[in-house]
């Protein structure tokens, strides 16, 4: 059914920290690797070792320079920007589907494609302003991020591994997975703390995923409160004798 389920209480999604993403593409590669062999695979490539390789990836990492004006002149802030499905609450990619292949799960809000029903009309890809869907020329059907639905509920994996492959792979922990419908979940708190935002809310598709903006840089235009060094306390009574003597000598 491509009509949307009633609003789900559980909203599984990702939170991506643009402050610490280093643009290494590990998320994209780990995603491709898992999903090629996962329940929604394969993700075949055309001409993989040739002159013009192409194929479906669920993750694309853009790199931007954000030019800022500072008292010392303009400078560029580098922001790496991973782009994938945002598992919207009211996704047009689902409602435009003529076959029922595109659907949003009522239990956790994950947006999926049933490859056995997809006729490959590509209307869903046209309907998505975020470029989340890529058509597989090789399979003749549409493919998209599954939020690793075949990992996160997979009881054959250790509990710690029941997370999307991109989240597991990120070497800087820039990606977080959890329930954004629960205000007390760790990732909802992270979003509240860091003013996480949704992409292009003007389309009214209500993305679930959130992006955490880069923190202000320390020089120039930074917020003065972040510059203040924390005051440290030292309980000298806890120190061994030699260090207590050293502290006393240096404190003179």
């Amino acid at each position, binding site marked *: 059914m491509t009509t949307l389920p009633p609003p789900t209480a559980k909203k599984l999604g990702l939170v991506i920290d643009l402050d610490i993403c280093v643009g290494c593409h590990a998320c994209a590669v780990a995603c491709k690797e898992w999903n090629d062999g996962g329940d929604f695979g394969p993700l075949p490539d055309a001409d993989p070792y040739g002159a013009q390789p192409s194929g479906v990836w669920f993750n694309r990492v853009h790199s931007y320079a954000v030019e800022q004006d500072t008292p010392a002149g303009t400078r560029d802030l580098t922001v790496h920007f991973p782009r994938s499905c945002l598992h919207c609450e009211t996704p047009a990619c689902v*409602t435009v589907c003529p076959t029922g292949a595109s659907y949003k799960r009522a239990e956790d809000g994950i947006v999926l494609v049933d490859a056995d029903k997809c006729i490959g009309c590509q*209307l869903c890809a046209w309907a998505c302003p975020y*470029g989340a869907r890529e058509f597989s020329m090789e399979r003749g059907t549409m493919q998209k991020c599954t939020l690793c639905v075949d990992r996160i509920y997979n009881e054959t994996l250790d509990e710690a591994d029941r997370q999307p492959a991109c989240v597991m792979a990120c070497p800087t922990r820039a990606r977080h997975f959890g329930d954004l419908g629960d205000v007390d979940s760790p990732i909802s708190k992270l979003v509240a703390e860091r003013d996480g935002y949704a992409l292009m809310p003007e389309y009214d598709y209500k993305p679930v995923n959130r992006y955490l903006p880069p923190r202000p840089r320390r020089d120039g235009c930074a917020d003065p409160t972040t510059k203040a060094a924390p005051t440290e306390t030292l309980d000298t009574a806890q120190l061994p004798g030699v260090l207590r003597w050293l502290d006393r000598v240096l404190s003179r």
Partner: protein
Amino acid sequence: MRPTFSIICFTVLSGIGYGAWFLIGLGLAIGRVFCGPRSAPNATGVSLVLCHPPFWSPGALELAFLLVGIGLLCSLGHLGKPRRAWRALSQWRSSWLSREGVAALATFVPATLLLAAAIVVPMIIAGIPAPSEQFSNWVLLSESALGLLLAAGSLLTVFCTANIYASLKPIRAWHDRHVVPAYLLLALYGGGLLLPIFPMWKGDQPILLTGLIALSLAAAWLKHRYWRSIDAQPAVSAGRATGLDALGRVRSFEQPHTEENYLTHEMGFVLARKHARKLRSVVLVAAFLLPALLAALALGLPATRMPAAWLAFASGVAGLFVERWLFFAEAKHAVMAYYQR
């Protein structure tokens, strides 16, 4: 957006077919009103109708049938899995594409029945020396009903087609208030181009040709308005797409992939926007102005009617192909903002 030949063929050919069906259906539906002065036997030899309805001529319904059929088959060419196309009829509650499929199939019912009637009814009439008044009334009533269904189904199908595109918010040139009226008007205009190439009840010719001139001018005006409207639309910026515009001016310094992918291939089509001005002039002249002049010529010099009608049809259809190519190719998808192309 990359213009796909299958979709251009589909929307142009089936649009013309549905436009013709709409006019024929309307003629049948209101044919009884004009029954008196047109009673049989009629000069064109159509004995389907005991009285000759407006815009009816042998062959027109059939050619429109062919165009609609070819168009719909073309649309299957766009699918990755054409053999599953039947599944597209299931989601009419939410999907305009599904609604279009249902409406298109439903419209084949009155069209097929009328086609069958065009063959069967004359045979029946030939067998009866003097058809009873009751029988004549029954034939007229069923033809009117089928005509009404044909006109309504054609209108509905084109309305659904237009809404497939008009409902896509990320493609601003399609999500424009002129798109649905333009699709409807251009389909009607396509029908108006097709009908004059057939022999017709002589009183219908001036009405049809005058109507064609009015439709072509109205369509040209609407397309002009549409182009002005889409030219005024602001493009989506990379800063807006990423939400980083609050921090500064956003510039892409590295693409996410070195080769083309589905998105850049499908949605990163630039050629049409580069040559938009020239192509728009081609559309205005070939699709609208030339057919209007030829129709005026046919009105003034009835002897030139058939060649003028054929030339107008050829020029108009070629122009409509350019118009549709431009409609698809000129449109920009919001996702390209991430690529800054």
